[in-house]
């Protein structure tokens, strides 16, 4: 699925060639455009040959979760300003603070933030009505269009960009962090033979590794490798969104799911997700396994969200961990450089499943028409092939491109093997497998997700802390989810 398509991304020159003539004739009244140079009155569109420069002088506000790709974009803004004459201010917040801020901005109708980091589950699903359908801009002759929508990895365009309707795009895929298996290659080399003898299988992480094997290896490390590493595995299991992410990998690979309309709810999303499946057999088996897994994991896991888990792994607290693949950049920038291997997560009895945590960026529909169009320019630029490549190579961030073609660029292909100038690409083998439509883990995209998510990770946190019968806690989770769905129906 990552096969190369059209090699060239959208460049400025192409955009000029494609739109130059048309834009000159269709532009807003010439008189307006003619007066004043760039940097004059904001929000006054200027006529001229370059559709990229029509909103020169405007200032855009981009609100984003504080992730690596946004750090990289932030360091690269000069290029966008040069291209468009538009200034961009970035507000970076922790995810829950971001959701609150965006929801209130939508409620205000003021459109203070024109470009929105639209988390598919916490923003897109509940508030898609406040996001401008991007089709109108893509089809607008006066505006540059996003080059080759087919180049966006299709599952990601669907998951991060759409809600319920297959032909309306609310956001363009902007980042694509996905959970993979990170392991200490040095320790596997050191202990691999002994492990193989003791456990009776080849421990080297591969496409065939299973969760049961993972548990056995984690237990083994915790017993025999304590000189090098205190625990075999660690997890992001704080009472937090992170815990739901970590658990979902196990849930799905054991054949379980959150809702009856599982696949549909994951990809396009749905207002009515069907009945909750959390007390079905497969879910209970998954919960039981997860509890056993966490019993051998570093006990700190219960206090770690994704940040803590990544830091713990880098600090050498465990031999293996399921982490976001974008953490590779931080791992490779640490003392563990060159010592860590990356693989897709183990398989369960039913399938392989790697949680996808990607997000799209969209345009705030409550902003003024001109601001929306200026915001579109930013969305196009930020998700273009060229920008994604720059982000990928950035010193400050380490992007996670969402366009298939980026991964086929010669310099990117070369970076798949160490020593790599682009550490995130070291994970390529793992994410290539993880992103196959059968493997990618898509959580429910439903308006009530925030409340469901909280009910789920709260019950899981109780299960892990209590150590008792998983069934009791899965019943609690189901009850919470049912209530959340019922409340949402009332609110809607």
């Amino acid at each position: 699925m990552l096969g190369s398509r059209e090699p060239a991304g959208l460049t400025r020159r192409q955009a000029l060639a494609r739109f130059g003539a048309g834009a000159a004739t269709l532009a807003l009244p010439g008189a307006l455009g003619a007066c004043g140079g760039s940097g004059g009155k904001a929000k006054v569109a200027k006529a001229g040959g370059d559709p990229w420069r029509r909103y020169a002088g405007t200032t855009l506000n981009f609100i984003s979760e504080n992730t690596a790709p946004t750090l990289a974009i932030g360091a690269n803004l000069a290029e966008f300003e040069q291209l468009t004459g538009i200034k961009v201010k970035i507000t970076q917040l922790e995810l829950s603070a971001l959701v609150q801020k965006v929801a209130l901005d939508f409620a205000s109708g003021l459109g203070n933030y024109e470009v929105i980091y639209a988390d598919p589950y916490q923003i897109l699903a509940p508030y898609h009505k406040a996001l401008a359908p991007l089709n109108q801009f893509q089809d607008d002759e006066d505006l540059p269009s996003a080059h080759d929508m087919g180049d966006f990895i299709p599952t990601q365009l669907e998951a991060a960009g759409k809600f319920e309707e297959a032909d309306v795009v609310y956001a363009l895929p902007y980042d694509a962090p996905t959970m993979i298996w990170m392991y200490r290659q040095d320790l596997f080399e050191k202990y691999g033979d002994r492990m193989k003898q003791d456990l009776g299988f080849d421990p080297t992480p591969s496409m065939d590794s299973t969760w049961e094997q993972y548990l056995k290896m984690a237990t083994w490390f915790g017993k025999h490798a304590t000189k090098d590493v205190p625990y075999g595995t660690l997890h992001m299991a704080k009472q937090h969104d992170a815990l739901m992410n970590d658990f979902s990998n196990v849930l799905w690979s054991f054949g379980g799911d959150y809702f009856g309309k599982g696949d549909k709810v994951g990809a396009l999303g749905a207002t009515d997700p069907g009945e909750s499946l959390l007390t079905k057999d497969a879910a209970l088996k998954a919960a039981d396994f997860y509890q056993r897994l966490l019993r051998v994991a570093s006990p700190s896991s219960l206090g770690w969200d994704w940040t803590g888990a990544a830091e713990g792994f880098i600090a050498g607290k465990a031999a293996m961990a399921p982490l976001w693949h974008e953490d590779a950049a931080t791992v490779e920038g640490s003392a563990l450089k060159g010592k860590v291997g990356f693989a897709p997560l183990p398989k369960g009895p039913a399938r392989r499943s790697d949680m996808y945590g990607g997000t799209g960026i969209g345009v705030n529909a409550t902003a003024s028409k001109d601001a929306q169009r200026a915001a579109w320019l930013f969305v196009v630029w930020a998700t273009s092939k060229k920008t994604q490549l720059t982000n990928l190579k950035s010193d400050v961030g380490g992007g996670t491109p969402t366009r298939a073609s980026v991964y086929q660029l010669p310099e990117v292909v070369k970076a798949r093997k160490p020593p790599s100038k682009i550490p995130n690409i070291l994970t390529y083998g793992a994410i290539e497998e993880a992103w196959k439509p059968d493997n990618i883990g898509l959580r429910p995209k439903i308006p009530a997700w925030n409340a469901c998510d909280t009910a789920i990770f709260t019950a899981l946190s109780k299960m892990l802390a209590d150590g008792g019968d998983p069934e009791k806690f899965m019943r609690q989770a189901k009850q919470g989810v049912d209530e959340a769905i019922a409340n949402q129906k009332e609110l809607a």
Partner: protein
Amino acid sequence: MAGARERRGIGIGKGALLVVVLLWTLIPLLWMALSSLKPSADITSGSMTVFFKPTFEHYKALFTGGNNIAPYIRNSIVAAGVSTLIAVVLGSMAGYGLARARFRGKDHVAFWIISTRMAPIAAVILPLFVIFRFTGLLGSVFGLIVAYLTFNLPFAIWIMNAFFAQLPPSLEEAAMTEGATRWQAFRHVALPLTLPGLATTAVLCLVFSWNDYAFASTFSGPDSQTLPIAASQLVTQTSIDWGQLTAIGTIVVAPMIICGLIVRRWLVTGLTLGAVTGE
């Protein structure tokens, strides 16, 4: 004599206790300041280094590049400063009025004033949001100033009331028999005598609003974010830059500690709304 030895023993015991109390109080603060000067590698190594070559890289990083905190500092100063100024001016007038007025139900008014400060912050966010939305204050520093008045104004009225209540009215009465108006008696007699109270009120209002996080995280816009918000933004998805975080922590905390200690002598009246020293 045995008594002297015993007393000396008690003295040493007391000294030791005091040292323990001071350590409990100060270690977190010292550790924060120390970490802000540590190279990042030493912070995350987990080896609790105390001796290292100090570096100002974290402070430098806070003032350069994409997350330059200078505008945050400016917003914090303006929002906290102006809100304090308004609270102190209106609060001292009202505090005086309340202290000198005699009317039935005065206790109820006083209680209503202070009860406005008891509302849970998360509960008043939405109504204030609605007000700000329709007055155009959303996302502006002025909005924060108004938001801070919701807790600073009742507080200022109460404290100033306590300070004025301690002041015998005879002084103002004397001034008025000399021909001063009531306003002049307030402005030139009563107010100067409560200067310490005024300073304490100002400092405490400043501390409360400077330290606010909940209101600022909701009402501030891209151009009106304050220092505590900048601090929380340093917690990112892949890592927490503790060097910068401890540096910004030091920057947020140091000025308030200094201000607070300057008015230490009168703090009790301020913080207890006069209930202790008003006796």
